[in-house]
Structure formats: C-alpha cells, structure tokens
C-alpha cells in the first residue's frame, strides 16, 4: 500500500486550475518533496491531501483512505505542520501539546509520556511550561513539529518547514526531520522552495509548475539528467584552450577570460584532466569544479522568469507577522 496515492487529482478555483490531473504515488517511509515556484499548486495539493480542501475531480488516498469520503479518518492518521504559525500564543508549550492530544483522542497516560519524549526530541523540555508568546520563531516551529507527531501519525505533512528561519535553526530542524525518519515509522511529505533543503532531506522530489508535475524522481537522478559538471580553469596560455576539445571526457569547451569545460562526470574526470593537460604541456594555474544541484534542475524545468506575486491578505498578514517578529 502506498502512503499517498493520487489519481488525476484536480482542483479549480473558478476558472483557474490550481492543480491539474496530478497523479503521484509515495511509498511508506519515504520523504517526498513537492517543489515549485509560488502559486504552482503545492499548497493546494497539500491542502487536498490534508482534507482542508475538497478536490474538484480525481481522487486521493492517504494511508489507503479516501480524502473525500473519509476525511475524519484521514485526519486521525496524519500530522500537519502548516506554513503559517498555528500554535496558541497564550498557552504554554506543554498545554498546546496536551490540547492536541485531547483533540486527537490520545489516551491520557500515553499522551503524557509521548509529550515528554517529543519535547526532548525538539529540545524544548526546558521551556515547556513557558507561554508560547515568549518563544522565538524557531522554537515555535519546533513545537509545531512536536505537536504534529503526538498522535503517532503515519504521514507527516510539512509545509515550508524552515521558511523565515535563520541558518542555525534551519540546520537544527533538518536534524530533527532526519532523526524522525530513523526513529519513527513515518512518511514525510514536505513542500519547500529551498532546493538545498529538498536535496538534503528528500528521497524523491516532484517538481510542480502550473498545477502539473514536470519532473519526478530521486534528486541525484534528476540532477544527472539535467545537470552538467562545469570545470572553470585558468591556464597560462589561453590560446591553447581548444586543445581540450580532443580529450574524450570533455563534452564542450567555452573560451573567454577563463576556460570552461563541460565534463562527463566531474568527480572522476578531474584527475584525468590534469594528466591530459600535463601530457600536452598545458600549465593549469587554477581550477574550480562546479557540480550541478537541484537548483539547476529546478530552473531547467520551471524556467527563470519571475512569477507575478499576489498581494493577497494572507501574504500581508505573513509580512506583518514577520515584521513583528512573530
């Protein structure tokens, strides 16, 4: 059984098709990333899987349960960490967690030990009895992650888990997520537009644009399909650059102020490149190898044009909150 299985999942808002005939399958235990520019349909997809939005057509099974027909049972089996803050500032961290356990019908004794365990996991045990009002942005995020896990969900949805956080906090949150995949039997679906995050965390990613999946696979496979290893070198005599064309592992040569070589596989061919240059008597002054990343894959499929941002109320709220440091 797949943790997530969608078939022709579609959602329209009036005339706008936000998600169009999306068909994906996510294995149990996988960390699956949904990537895409703003307004591509990531959140709409996530909201349908979490039963917040009803699909216009098509179907989606979460843990084998139909989101349209059994939304309540789907909700019991999933955990959600929203993009926007959703903890109660006027309660303590622990009270927020206890409330969640009550709403999800977790047995009292079990809930108590689970809450302790999770507070330790996200390293909030020492602040558990302070009002959330006094927490930093990163602490709130950690609390939300802990909260999403209380009822032992089989699938955890993370919507932009590290947006707006500083680099240290992001790294911490990545650690927690990685530990989860080891310590809990859980499938994680995350949306992000940070490519480093996706590359680091996800077993597979789906790039979504204009409501459709445009690329799907393991990050390393996608990178290999799209990317090219580029070695940029400075050599003593630039006029000899064209001689690199003769090497079997060099695909293309560009000459400018420096020489750029497109290599088959940068890691293994770099030593060969040195040997080749030595045998020809070309002196290399410096070399820099740039390997492609998921970023290149993303730009390849999605293009470089900027998307029109919608200045809707929600964005304004987010902006306000960020300014207020909430």
């Amino acid at each position, binding site marked *: 059984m797949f943790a997530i299985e969608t078939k022709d999942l579609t959602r329209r808002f009036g005339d706008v098709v936000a998600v169009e005939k999306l068909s994906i399958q996510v294995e149990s235990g996988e960390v699956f990333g949904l990537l895409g520019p703003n307004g591509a349909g990531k959140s709409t997809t996530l909201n349908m899987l*979490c*039963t*917040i*939005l009803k699909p216009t057509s098509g179907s989606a099974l979460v843990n084998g349960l139909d989101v349209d027909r059994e939304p*309540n*049972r789907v*909700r*019991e089996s999933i955990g*959600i960490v*929203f993009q*926007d*803050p*959703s*903890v*109660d*500032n*006027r*309660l303590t961290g622990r*009270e927020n967690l206890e*409330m*969640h356990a*009550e*709403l*999800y*019908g977790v047995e009292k004794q079990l809930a108590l030990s689970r809450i302790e365990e999770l507070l330790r996991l996200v390293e909030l045990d020492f602040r558990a009895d302070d009002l959330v009002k006094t927490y930093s942005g990163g602490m709130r995020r950690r609390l939300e992650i802990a*909260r999403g896990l209380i009822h032992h969900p089989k699938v955890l949805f993370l919507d932009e888990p590290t947006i707006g956080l500083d680099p240290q906090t992001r790294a911490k949150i990545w650690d927690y997520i990685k530990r989860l995949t080891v310590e809990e039997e859980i499938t994680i679906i995350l949306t992000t537009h940070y490519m480093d995050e996706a590359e680091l965390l996800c077993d597979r990613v789906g790039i979504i644009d204009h409501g459709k999946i445009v690329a799907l696979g393991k990050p390393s496979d996608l990178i290999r399909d799209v990317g090219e290893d580029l070695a940029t070198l400075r050599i003593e005599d630039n006029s000899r650059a064209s001689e690199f064309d003769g090497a079997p592992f060099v695909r293309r040569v560009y000459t400018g102020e420096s020489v750029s070589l497109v290599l088959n596989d940068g890691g293994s061919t770099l030593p060969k490149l040195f040997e080749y240059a030595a045998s020809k008597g070309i002196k290399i002054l410096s070399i820099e190898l740039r390997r492609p990343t998921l970023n290149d894959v993303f730009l390849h499929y999605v293009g470089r044009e900027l998307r029109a941002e919608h200045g809707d*109320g929600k964005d304004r*709220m987010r902006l306000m909150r960020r300014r207020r440091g909430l």
Partner: protein
Amino acid sequence: MNMRAVKTIWVRELRVHLRDRANVISSVARSVLWLLVFGGGFGAARFSGLEVGYQEFLFPGIIAMSLLFTSIRSGISVIWDREFGFMKEILVSPASRFSIMAGKMLGGSTIAVVEGLIILLLGPLFGIKLSAFGVLACLFFMFLISFSLVSIGLIVSSIMKTFEGFQSIMTFLIMPMFFMSGALFPIDKLPSWMTPIVSLNPLTYGVDALRQILVGVGKYGILFDIFVLSLAAVVTMAGGVRAFRNRE
C-alpha cells in the same frame, strides 16, 4: 458530538481568558463604575414612576451589560484565533465542527457567567438582597442569555474577516443592544420607533427576568422570558453552527 473535544476547547477558552487577570478585573471594574457613577448620578435625579430606587433598578441591567460585552467578545475571538492561525489546528483535528462550536459556546458563556456572578455577589453593596434561590435562578438566566450572545458573536465572526471591523460591531450591534434592552430605563413609555427594537432584542427579556428575581419588578411574565430566551438561544445557536460549518 465528541465530549472530550468539547471539554478541551471549553477549558482552553477559560484558561486563556482567566489567565489574563486584567480581562476579568477591567470587566468587573467597568460594571462597578456604571453602578457607582451612572447609578449614583441618575439615582439622585429621581425618575418618576419607578417602583424601586434607581440603583436597584439599574443593577440587573448592568449584569446584563457585562454578559453582553463578554459573551459577544468571546464569540468574536474566533477572528483572533483565525488570524493567528490557531483555528487551523483545531479545524484539521478529527474533532467535529459541532464539538468545536459547542466548546467555544460553553467556554464563552462560562466566562461571561463567572464575571456576571462576581458582580451579582457585589449586589448587597448596591442595595440588592441576595438569597440562595435568587443566585441560582440568576445563574440559570445568565447562562441562557449568554448562549444567545456568544452565538451572535460567532455569527459576526464568520462575517467579519479581520478585527478592523470591531469598532463598527461596538457601535452598531453591542451598544444598541445594551441601550435598547431596558437595562438603563423602564421600557413601558418609550418613543414609538424604539418599541419594536426593544421587543425584538433578546437581551430585553434577560434584563426583565433578572430584574424580577433581584428586585421584584418586571414587564413580562418570567415564563414568557424563559420562552423567548430559549427561542433566541436555539435560533442563534443554529445560526452559529451554520456559520461555523460554512467556513473552510
């Protein structure tokens, strides 16, 4: 209905509200201010045709005012929960919308009644004689009144998207409901335009019932008050549930 979820939301409402002592204190202080200043000032001016002193007459009206302000605010606080994202957490939980709404209603009413009770117990300072039966009867009516008022707040919160509109709610809903409920003056010799509004205002019957219990004067029969208040509670609760369901 899931009782555990109802209780959870109920407890949360109480906790959040009562934890902020300033909420309760300022609410009680406002009522005392009205009783002292308004009651004292107008009491000295002397109305004709009042069967009891003005301060005694006013006292049940001020309890009703307190219930009105606190209940509607509680209902409207859903906007706050929504704006700060917390509503989303509740709405995606397996708890049914109806349980959540019931919890909100019980929570809001309990807070309103607790504040009302504090004022009620101050009654002897303003010439009110309290009996155990009187207090119990008042508690019953205070809950009945609050149910309608919290529900009205919930309905308003589903129409209003942000808190920016709160001032107009104050001006066009809360103040008129207060002024035209008989809380401040007798309602048997009113200008003709006001009479229909007063009769349609559920708070009128709440004030009337409290006044009969506490000072023994009133316009309608107590059973009629119960009937109208129950009807209002059922209608507004149905509206509240609807408003809550329709929200995505």
